[in-house]
């Protein structure tokens, strides 16, 4: 819902993502705030936000495939891994700069995703979930055998650098990750409002109706996988430069499940939902991880396992509560709040 008095007189205005002056001010302030964070935030926070930005890119990709196009993907971490390995291999063996290797990693993941996603044309639901699950095992099998991927020992990745400046400090890595995340989210916002995005939603809501309307299911389902896994590949590329070491052990099925949890909590079919869900679950994880050592130290008789195990308990509980009480996720809740604020003092 737009603020009162905001209406479009031209198609260009109607297409714009940012519609009002206040929205522009808030957006620019937010971006400026993000970029001045390193001035007053400690290393711990910079590390957290950097990793969260990388995860966010993968979750936005998953949101496009699963939330918008309705194609369940349980192997997002595998595509992330493929992106990481491709980026690392290109950086190590060909000495290519990061601004080439990261997109190349995205493309490698997209090719992998496109192949895995092909059966989506014929199958859906749980069956598709199982097929995408196979990606996880394919990656583990393939990554240690493809020449150039470093085998079982993995690959040590050189630092990302541009004109001699190396992204090795927490602040520089933060800028690299956050900038990429901002760009990818911006592109995702554009995509979901485009013809392709609308086709995704049509397929998700009713495949038969979409096909009757002239939407090519094969094409759009494959595109949804290509784009979603491209995002995972970009996240993988960033991860390679952030970690400086890529090994197959890093890409576990467990993470793919959490990413699905993130879009469930944030709200399926909403880029904002991906952002909110990632922030909430990642925040809970970090909160428990950082407070558990203190609790374990002060209450040793309870046992560290109780405190540390709390992460999974709380995250599982959060997902469960959202499914029961707010299945449309945080994004929906946010929209309700925004509408209420705009209508106030009137109830509707």
């Amino acid at each position, binding site marked *: 819902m737009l603020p009162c008095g905001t209406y479009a007189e031209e198609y260009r205005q109607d297409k714009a993502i940012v519609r009002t002056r206040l929205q522009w001010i808030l957006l620019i302030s937010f971006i400026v705030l993000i970029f001045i964070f390193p001035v007053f935030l400690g290393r711990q926070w910079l590390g957290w936000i950097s990793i969260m930005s990388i995860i966010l890119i993968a979750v936005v990709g998953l949101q496009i495939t699963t939330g918008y196009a309705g194609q369940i993907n349980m192997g997002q971490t595998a595509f992330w891994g493929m992106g990481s390995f491709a980026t690392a291999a290109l950086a190590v063996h060909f000495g290519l700069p990061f601004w080439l290797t990261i997109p190349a990693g995205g493309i490698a993941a997209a090719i992998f995703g496109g192949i895995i996603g092909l059966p989506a044309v014929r199958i859906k639901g749980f069956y598709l979930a199982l097929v995408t699950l196979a990606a996880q095992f394919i990656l583990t099998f393939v990554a240690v055998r493809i020449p150039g991927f470093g085998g079982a020992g993995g690959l040590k990745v050189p630092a990302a650098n541009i004109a001699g400046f190396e992204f090795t400090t927490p602040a520089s890595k933060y800028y690299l990750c956050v900038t990429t995340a901002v760009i990818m989210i911006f592109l995702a916002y554009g995509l979901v409002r485009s013809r392709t995005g609308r086709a995704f939603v049509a397929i998700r809501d009713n495949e038969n109706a979409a096909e009757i309307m002239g939407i090519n299911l094969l094409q759009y389902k494959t595109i949804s996988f290509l784009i979603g896994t491209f995002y995972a590949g970009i996240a993988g590329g960033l991860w390679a430069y952030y970690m400086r070491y890529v090994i197959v052990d890093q890409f576990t099925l467990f993470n793919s499940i959490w990413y699905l949890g993130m879009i469930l909590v944030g709200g399926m079919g909403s880029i904002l939902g991906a952002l909110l869900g990632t922030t909430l679950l990642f925040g809970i994880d970090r909160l428990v991880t950082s407070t558990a*050592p203190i609790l374990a130290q002060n209450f040793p008789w309870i*046992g560290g396992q109780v405190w*540390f195990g709390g992460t999974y308990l709380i995250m599982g509980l959060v997902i469960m509560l959202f499914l029961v009480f707010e299945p449309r996720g945080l994004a929906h809740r946010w929209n309700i709040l925004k509408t209420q604020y705009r209508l106030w003092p009137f109830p509707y």
Partner: protein
Amino acid sequence: MKSGYVYYIWVLLLVVVLVIFPCCVKPQGNQPVVEQPKKITEYYIAGMADYTGPFASVVKQWTAGADASLNWWNENVGKDIGVKLTIKWYDFRYDMATATALWPEMLSSINPIFVFGWGGPDNLAYTESTKEDKVPLISMPSTYGFAWKPDTWLFQYAPTAVHEMSAALDYLIESTPESERPVKVCMVGVENNPIWIEGEKGGAWMAENVPYYKENMEWMGVAWIPRVPVDITDVLRPFVDKDADVYDVMGPVLYGVAVHRALDGLGVHKPIIVTVGDNLLSLSQTLGWENMEGYIEPTFAASPLEKDIPAYTELWTKYHPAGTDIEEDWTMITPRTVAQGLIIGRAAEIAAATVGPENITGQAMYDAMFKVEMTKDNSLGLLKSGAKWSKDRPFPIDGYYGAAIDTVKDGKYIEAVPWMEVRSFDWRPALSQ
């Protein structure tokens, strides 16, 4: 007026007497001398623990050994030199990604001077960070092949997992002189996992290139099992059919149990070589001693059954943390984490002597590690061959490592070999194959 003046003089004299007299009198021999408390500077050690991952079943003994050793060190050494070492545990879930995410948090919250590593994912995650941020790390389990690199800030006091297997095989070969053929060895590993892929390469290399094993051992390869094994009977069947003599099972208790059940299902009973994660005591809780006849446990520190060493009598029994049991929690892991803590303590001692107790940093600890010489005495009987490090490898130099072997005989957990030399061989060429 005059009487008032005299009164003040008397009061002044009384104060002088009361204040000065005690200061002039020397204390008698039987009176305690009140010493000024020494200034203690507290430093943090970041502890890696797997509370919620595959090795959660042994985390209690893991943390208990480390806590006990640092409690002992603080009381018996640290207090005198003005240093206190406090370990803060972090759950890295035996996962490299989690370990990586923890690094900035650890640095900013406790500014550690050392990392009490677990081994495996944390080593990999921190290969670069330890060097860049100048915080050394020491782990207890055997090194993996891919962590065997020169000039690293990672330390271990045990050589590689392949060396660990070799110690157990030496015992097995020597204890079965009647055998007329080389011992057939099967490793059980998790599919596509780097640790076991390295193990496969190392085992094969050892069998082909080390003269003793070339003569006495036949490498049958790796039986690949899923990460969460349920029934692995079919996986082990080919090895059973070819009459494998021993199964090397590096991993958590779950793997040891799966291998035992599969062999049981196939109607054979063969020795299993266990390691830290599936140590005999932990395994016995599920399988029972009577079903574990001949199982072998090589350990790079003193056997947990050797209880007449100061590490047990002076350290563990007196300084074990609350909530732990003196008997039950002294498993194969505990002596090894105690030893790990003592090495950190020894490095802190050297660092304090070099840069002063108030100026210890990660760099000072790293430099001190190359001056550390662990002996049987200063390791309280745990490291009988001692330990000494150089920059060319993460684990001690040749001649400075050995192992104890425990086994199960007649349904009893016994110490088979109190200490034996572990063969030195460099199997790194296998890593490039």
